[in-house]
């Protein structure tokens, strides 16, 4: 199966004075398979939105190639099969929620009956069925984001570009939209998700690319990227003698009332700690902790800055 997105040696340098010309995107290459939920993360100004805009044909690359669903980025026929939710979307405020959806339906040349049914269906799907008659001026940020999601689902797209879809939302709206993205993934849709909400990315994405200063610094599945972290072993009734005994194997040892927690980095040391504690304390739990995407992100960005 062809890739949903294929980017090869893509570079984008914005115009301006020659001395100010720093590539916003610097010779990046990656692919996104069909049906994949792909996370695209990076600090502000890393080149995320520029990459998305090139893939949508809103910007043109300085060099390199970008293909979407097998066609060059910006192909008008391909746009029938893709959709885009920009960061903090803005729509015409004088229109009602239903009118906005109807307007976007018209851009797909839908007939009146189809538009009416689609508008109703989408307003229900994003939880705005009761508010469709209100003008967007009366909508909260969360409601506007829901309208944004609704317009992105009009054409039942094969590929969705979502730029910060949960930015600034309250916890309920946040949860709803994260669940929606996950459900799109389950339906076999390809999702290209750019977000600062690393917890969301970790929850819903199959693969992640980290971009910093225009370059992709890491790409892979979450299992590949996130190394197994430390293990936390908790004992009860552990004496000071045991604490001293396990210290050489531990990264850190902490006492909390009756409980002693031993933080261990390697599997070998886990066994050594457990052997040392045998018969000297009560074992409460052994919890392996995986590195989080946030840990990895911070580590990489700090490393690059150094």
């Amino acid at each position: 199966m062809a890739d949903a997105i294929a980017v090869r040696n893509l570079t984008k340098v914005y115009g301006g004075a020659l001395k100010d010309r720093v590539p916003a995107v610097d010779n990046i290459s990656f692919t996104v398979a069909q049906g994949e939920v792909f996370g695209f993360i990076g600090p502000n100004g890393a080149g995320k939105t520029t990459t998305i805009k090139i893939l949508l044909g809103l910007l043109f690359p300085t060099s390199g190639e970008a293909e979407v669903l097998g066609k060059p980025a910006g192909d008008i026929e391909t746009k029938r099969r893709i959709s885009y939710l920009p960061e903090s979307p803005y729509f015409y405020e004088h229109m009602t929620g239903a009118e906005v959806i109807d307007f976007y339906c018209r851009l797909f040349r839908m007939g009146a009956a189809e538009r009416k049914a689609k508008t109703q269906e989408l307003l229900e799907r994003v939880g705005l069925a009761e508010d469709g008659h209100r003008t967007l001026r009366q909508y909260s940020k969360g409601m506007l984001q829901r309208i944004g999601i609704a317009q992105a689902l009009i054409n039942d797209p094969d590929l969705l570009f979502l730029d910060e879809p949960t930015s600034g939302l309250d916890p309920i709206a946040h949860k709803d939209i994260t669940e929606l993205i996950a459900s799109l993934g389950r339906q076999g849709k390809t999702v290209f998700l750019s977000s600062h909400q690393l917890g969301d990315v970790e929850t819903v994405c199959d693969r992640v690319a980290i971009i910093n200063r225009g370059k992709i610094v890491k790409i892979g599945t979450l299992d590949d990227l996130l190394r197994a972290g430390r293990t936390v072993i908790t004992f009860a009734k552990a004496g000071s003698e045991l604490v001293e005994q396990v210290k050489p194997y531990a990264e850190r040892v902490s006492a909390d009332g009756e409980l002693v927690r031993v933080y261990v980095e390697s599997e070998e040391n886990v066994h050594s700690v457990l052997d040392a504690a045998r018969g000297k304390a009560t074992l409460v739990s052994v919890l392996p902790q995986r590195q989080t995407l946030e840990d990895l992100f911070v580590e990489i960005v700090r490393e690059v800055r150094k």
Partner: protein
Amino acid sequence: MIIWSIAKTTVGDALRKKVLQIFLVVAIGLIIISLSFSQTLSFSSRAGSSTDIMLVKSFGLGLMAVAAWLISLVMGVSLIPQEIERRTIYTILAKPVKRYEFIVGKYLGAVLTLAINVAIMGVVFIAVCVFKAMGAEQPIAPEETGLPIVGMQQVGLFDWNMVWGVIMIFLQFTVLTSVVLLFSVFLTPTVNFFMGLGVYIIGVMAPLTETLSSKESQLHPVLKAFYRVIHTVVPNFDKFNVTNTLLHPETHIESMAKYTGIVTLYALFYSLLMMLLAIIIFRKKEV
């Protein structure tokens, strides 16, 4: 369908702009106030006479032109930049919308907005003219002919020339709108405003640039060529300025309908040319 949808949205958006509403309301207010000019202005002392009507017509047409000029300029300069600034353009161009459809839709929306505004002002203006003409009289043998006045007659209530005048104002500013639409593809609204203003002033002075570039002109050939280029490239807004002709029967155009037809074709041709250029530039425009 797409062009029409974009046009309708543009109209809805523009009609809600407070600044455009203010231009319209002030213009309508002043047109209505002009009813009392004969009582207040010393140079027109014959209340209810044909002179007063001419004053109201002249003032009304001039005022409508100024209001339409402001509306087309203020609305036109932000047609494209505002869509980019508000990010509405992203969701539209990410859909299967061709870039030319977007430009044509925006222009059509702007022209419709202008038409609505000019039509509202025009209706009020013509109503004011009709009201003013009620009971007004004019000399049967006008003074300009040198013949003695043999009596007075009732002034006609409805003057078709005023309708032509309103149409001319509309046509004139569809052309200016097309010029600022072209500029709005690559200029910021402020720069565009002054560029549009400059183009309009030069366009109104078309007879002057024509004289300066004529064979009889005493200017240096390079300057003559320069004025020739200016005269050719900048739209001739003077063509639309028919107020004097409409108000003074002795200078009237043989067939106003025919003249309007020719000017309509000119406006159409120029607007299409501007739109074509805008489409060519917008094809490669990064948003």
